[in-house]
């Protein structure tokens, strides 16, 4: 097991900078996710941890030992590829045994260890098959076995679930989590799927264009996004984001969003903004943090339902205010129909503000 530290890591391919000066501390024995859209540098970071790529600048430490320049075979990491990369000419057994065979582990011990790990992952009845003769989910487990059989200090997973169908994905997600906890192995997971990151990881680093946007617990990513990118990337359905100008009307502060929407400012926020000079923000509020009321309320805005979408357990209720759209998520059993008039009240402590210029979160008390 190992704690991993990345210090000012940069990786450039020619003039293209894939990873731009990132620093991360990855705690021992936990699952850490690198989350971001494709091309954000997350896989490059993973391959640097494996030793396949060498960082252009910066240092990587495993348990305070610098590993720059140490080749993959000496790093004792297990890596599961997105495509699994199982050797097609070897049986499942030979695939899993391969790392041990290269380490010249005695044959009996290899047999024992392969069978043990295969049992943990529940593929012990497939050992004599070739990869082409087993399903995608089983291949995934074999790849996991091959990575785990050498008792690695670090388990690296590159999009481990993206080649599986939806149902299998949920099962495998839980399965990997179970195995990880059973073995207590430090795990780094690369994914573009926020659900995967949030459900599997103890902490998540959101990346974009080779830069870490936020590194925090999954809860904080959703509740306290550090900037507008994280706010818009996380959450499904996506956060309502709109330009908002702080102004006052009849002695009360309001956010003017476009020409037709005026959102009353809760007192706590008004107080927090008092010391700031800028008046223009990006206002964000998640659909699940918008309450629909039948009666007027001082912090609610009146709106007419433009469209209702049923999403299984929830309904997505769409309001339009000129060019600005507001979407609210309510339980499916709430009666609401198109053309109906409702009062929309954002939960005061769930309103996010971002600076209009820098797109960084504006600190709001509470």
């Amino acid at each position, binding site marked *: 097991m190992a704690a991993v530290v990345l210090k000012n890591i940069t990786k450039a391919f020619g003039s293209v900078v894939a990873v731009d000066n990132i620093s991360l501390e990855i705690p021992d024995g936990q699952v850490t996710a690198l989350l971001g859209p494709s091309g954000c540098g997350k896989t490059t970071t993973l391959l640097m941890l494996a030793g396949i790529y060498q960082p252009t600048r910066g240092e990587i430490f495993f348990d305070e030992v610098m590993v720059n320049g140490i080749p993959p*075979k000496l790093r004792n990491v297990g890596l599961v*590829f997105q*495509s699994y990369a199982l050797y097609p000419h*070897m049986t499942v057994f030979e695939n899993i045994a391969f790392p041990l065979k290269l380490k010249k582990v005695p044959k009996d011990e290899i047999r024992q260890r392969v069978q043990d790990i295969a049992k943990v992952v529940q593929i012990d009845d497939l050992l004599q098959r070739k990869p082409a003769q087993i399903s995608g989910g089983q291949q995934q487990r074999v790849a996991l076995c091959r990575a785990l059989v050498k008792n690695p200090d670090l388990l690296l997973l590159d999009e481990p679930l993206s080649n599986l169908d939806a149902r299998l994905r949920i099962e495998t997600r839980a399965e990997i989590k179970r195995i990880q906890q059973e073995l207590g192995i430090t795990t780094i997971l690369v994914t573009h799927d926020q659900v995967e990151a949030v459900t599997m990881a103890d902490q998540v680093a959101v990346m974009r264009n080779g830069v870490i946007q936020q590194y925090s617990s999954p809860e904080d990513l959703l509740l306290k996004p550090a900037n507008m990118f994280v706010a818009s990337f996380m959450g499904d359905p996506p956060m309502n984001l709109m330009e908002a100008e702080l102004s006052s009307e009849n002695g009360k502060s309001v956010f003017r969003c476009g020409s037709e929407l005026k959102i009353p400012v809760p007192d706590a926020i008004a107080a927090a903004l008092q010391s700031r000079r800028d008046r223009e923000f990006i206002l964000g509020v998640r659909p699940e943090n918008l309450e629909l009321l039948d009666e007027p309320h001082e912090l609610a805005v009146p709106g007419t339902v433009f469209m209702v979408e049923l999403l299984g357990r929830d309904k997505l209720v769409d309001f339009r205010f000129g060019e600005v759209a507001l979407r609210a998520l309510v339980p499916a059993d709430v009666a609401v129909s198109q053309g109906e008039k409702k009062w929309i009240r954002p939960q005061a402590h769930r309103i996010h503000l971002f600076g209009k210029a820098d797109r960084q979160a504006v600190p709001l008390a509470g």
Partner: protein
Amino acid sequence: MKRRGYGMIVLLLLPALLIILAFYVVPAVLTGTMSLTNMDHRLSWNFVGLDNYKAMLQDTILSRVFWNTLLYVFGTLLCFNVTFGLLLALATSYIAERQAERTSMFFRALWLLPRFTPPIVYGVIWLWILDPTRNGLLNGILNFFGGRPVSWISEYPMPVIILTNGVIGASFGMILFYSAITSISKEYTWAAEVDGAGWLQRIRYVTLPLIRWPLMFVTAYQTLSLLTSYEYILIITGGGPFYRTTVWSLYAYNEAFGGYYASYRFGYATALTLVLVLISMVASIIYWRVFRFREMMSEPKIEVI
């Protein structure tokens, strides 16, 4: 409608059929027929039944030619067309992997040069390299280090023809193996590295098994093409000294068109070539079975998921 489609098919196939008929079927039938005659420089069709085939059984030189052929084909194959071609492919792909794509390309192009060179020029270059006097390249070098000139061609005729054919032949394997190696998914390479494989182990356990179809294909294909190739031998050693480098196809050629043996025994020569066709067919069937080419036909040629 159906009838018209049929006519169209015939029309489209006709040019190819005519070409095959004119340049393959007719010569094949003529050759077969000719092998039943004792045709010589007078070119008369004088049928003698199976006399030519019976003569082959009594031909004391033929067994020597047979062993020469075997040695030449498998020697060239093992030393150069497969092994050396593979080494070149591995070396150039290793260079390319280290971000030196241009260097790699340069070396591959270099090894293709012999193939682009007209055979007669290529042969003459070798004759100069191997010249028994001090004017030859090899002997010049030997002389520089104080050695005595060696009569390469008369002393080592078989290694000479294997080498000269191999230097050309290796490029075929090189090109095929190189493209097979570079089309192996990078993730296999990375997986092998993470699993703890060094470069040699990676080649042995991952690369070679993944390119086994190209390897077997090149072996089989080059066997057949070496069985019928004789032009460089003809130019460089002429089959000598005293039949020591005469392979089956060259023997047939010499029986027909002479060289310094000047025989013009067309009947016997065609019988020899027909037996060579038979040998090639047997070789193909053996390869087909041993290498399980039926599987190759039904699968992608390079195993990449």
